[in-house]
């Protein structure tokens, strides 16, 4: 007689997860909070999505606490804390989403097939939206930001290397100056460049705009690079020195490649800091309606395109301003995406 031993295949379970009943109770708490929030909304005259959110936000932690009341003080405290954090998260997401959605809705009105390739050379700002475009402003902003990056990223990284690696006699002073510089109002930077570059070289130019932007960009790049370089462990520097490397070789062969992606992030933060700056550009690069790549002449830029279009008060011009805002947001997003791809490629190597 043979005995068949039946082996039960183990079933994967997750005992640390909420049971179905608890999950249902939590869902019920959310639903009740929403319904009561809606009721408060109706009774008090708060209105719209925000009104619903305010009502729900206060009730949700209470309801979720009641739903879990039987499970002990620790669980209740945990649920209340989680609920408050969730509410806070949504509260800070709303303005962000609101800006994004509004800019997208209103900005897309200005878009037409050749919006990104045309300029405003023969089109008045108040003209119909199917004419003209924003290419001149995109080119101008890209050019000035590029020149500003080329100026300030090397200087910023060198300053950080001096503070962190060389630890020279003036390291403390340089750090202090960089910190002070990051507090300079952008209009002051613009005025400074106006009184030097613009006055000396006889007029508004893309060069002047780029210099003004680089002044604002430098402290961001330097301070972020400094923090990034500090992350490199002393052991690596010591090992490199023990292999007979000079300090310069250590910095360029070991330290900087180790934090390359962090330094790229520093550069992007610098770009994001200045790409939307308006005040210094009014005083330096001014504005121009046609596509131009001549750095010695005034040049268009996205912030000033927005600023000047909005100032007209015309309906179509206002729509163009929103379009410019959308392009500006898109541009920053594009930069971030680019560097994410770039730095992940470096890491994979």
């Amino acid at each position: 007689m043979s005995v068949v031993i039946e082996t039960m295949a183990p079933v994967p379970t997750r005992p640390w997860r909420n049971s179905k009943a608890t999950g249902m109770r939590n869902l019920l708490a959310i639903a009740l909070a929403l319904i009561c929030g809606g009721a408060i909304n109706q009774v008090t005259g708060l209105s719209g999505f925000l009104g619903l959110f305010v009502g729900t936000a206060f009730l949700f932690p209470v309801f979720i606490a009641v739903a879990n009341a039987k499970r002990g003080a620790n669980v209740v405290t945990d649920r209340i804390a989680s609920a408050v954090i969730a509410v806070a998260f949504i509260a800070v997401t709303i303005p962000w989403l609101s800006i994004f959605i509004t800019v997208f809705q209103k900005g897309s009105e200005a878009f037409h097939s050749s919006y990104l390739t045309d300029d405003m050379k023969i089109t008045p700002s108040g003209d119909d939206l199917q004419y003209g475009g924003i290419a001149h402003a995109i080119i101008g902003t890209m050019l000035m930001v590029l020149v500003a990056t080329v100026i300030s990223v090397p200087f910023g990284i060198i300053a950080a290397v001096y503070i962190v690696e060389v630890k020279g006699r003036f390291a403390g002073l340089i750090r202090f100056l960089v910190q002070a510089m990051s507090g300079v109002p952008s209009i002051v930077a613009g005025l400074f460049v106006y009184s030097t570059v613009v006055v000396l070289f006889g007029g508004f130019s893309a060069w002047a705009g780029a210099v003004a932007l680089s002044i604002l960009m430098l402290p961001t790049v330097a301070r972020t690079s400094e923090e990034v370089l500090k992350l490199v462990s002393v052991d690596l520097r010591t090992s490199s020195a023990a292999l007979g490397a000079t300090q310069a070789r250590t910095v360029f062969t070991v330290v900087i490649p180790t934090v390359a992606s962090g330094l790229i992030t520093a550069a992007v933060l610098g770009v994001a800091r200045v790409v939307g700056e308006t005040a210094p550009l009014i005083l330096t690069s001014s504005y121009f309606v046609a596509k131009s790549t001549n750095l010695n002449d005034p040049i268009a830029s996205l912030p000033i395109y927005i600023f000047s279009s909005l100032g007209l008060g015309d309906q179509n011009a206002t729509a163009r301003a929103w379009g410019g805002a959308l392009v500006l947001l898109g541009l920053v997003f594009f930069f971030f995406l680019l560097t994410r791809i770039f730095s992940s490629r470096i890491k994979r190597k």
Partner: protein
Amino acid sequence: MENNQIESQISETARPHITAKVEIPEQRSKLHTEDVQVDKMVKSESGLETRNVHAWFDKHHALADISLHFPKNTVTGLIGPSGCGKSTFLRLLNRMHEFIPRAAMAGEVLFAGNDIYDPGVNPIDIRRRIGMVFQKPNPFPAMNIGENVVAGLKLSRVKTSNKDALIEDCLTRAGLWKEVKDRLGSAGGSLSGGQQQRLCIARALALNPEVLLLDEPCSALDPGSTLRVEETIVQLSATMTIVIVTHNMQQAARVSDYCAFFLSDGGPGQLVEADLTTNIFSNPSDTRTADYVQGRFG
């Protein structure tokens, strides 16, 4: 078999000697006296030697009057409790001590007949010829395994005709080649701790140093990896002088030909005794050494 070969190289003349000077000399600048010049005839024709070496960190006197001779192609273990100045001493041997702000030293470190602290000597050159491996394995994160091995060449701008052969040779000598030969392109950090440490040894070997300093190279490793590193050390000692700091008495007994026992009685660290390893462990002349190696303190 490796051990026998080394034993035969040890002669009585090559024994480390201890000078019995007590007075503390002034710091470095005034130190070159005539009697040192005379002594240069008898000094180590090979290997490494320290004479009356002191070390300070700011005002703190960390190491006092260490005179030791490391004969060529031998392994010397530096033993002693924590804080007795072993690592400080090791870092003095290839001019890594000066990286610490406000550090100072006195005495002479003779390498191939010359004081490495002479003003004309290039510290970069010294560190190239006297390699060092640290306590924690630290392959360069931005480089892969192969690049890590030849990092020293890149860092010191030395050109090599056949990089691949050098990588294979160094990894073989460090006892790592078989394990990594198929993945030289992956990151150094992807190796286990023991493999990383052997990679760091290979990295030091690529510059073909005459002396290799090891600062507790096995303290972060498991027993298996420790054994591999120890085998590597014994094999390497056929062609280079090795100085190893270790807290592990068994390790010192296993790998070293000579042992030097350091101790600090609250003041600066001092050399208590230096002798053949067999003598240190079986018949030490100082009772403190006997107490330490038998595990009665430290």
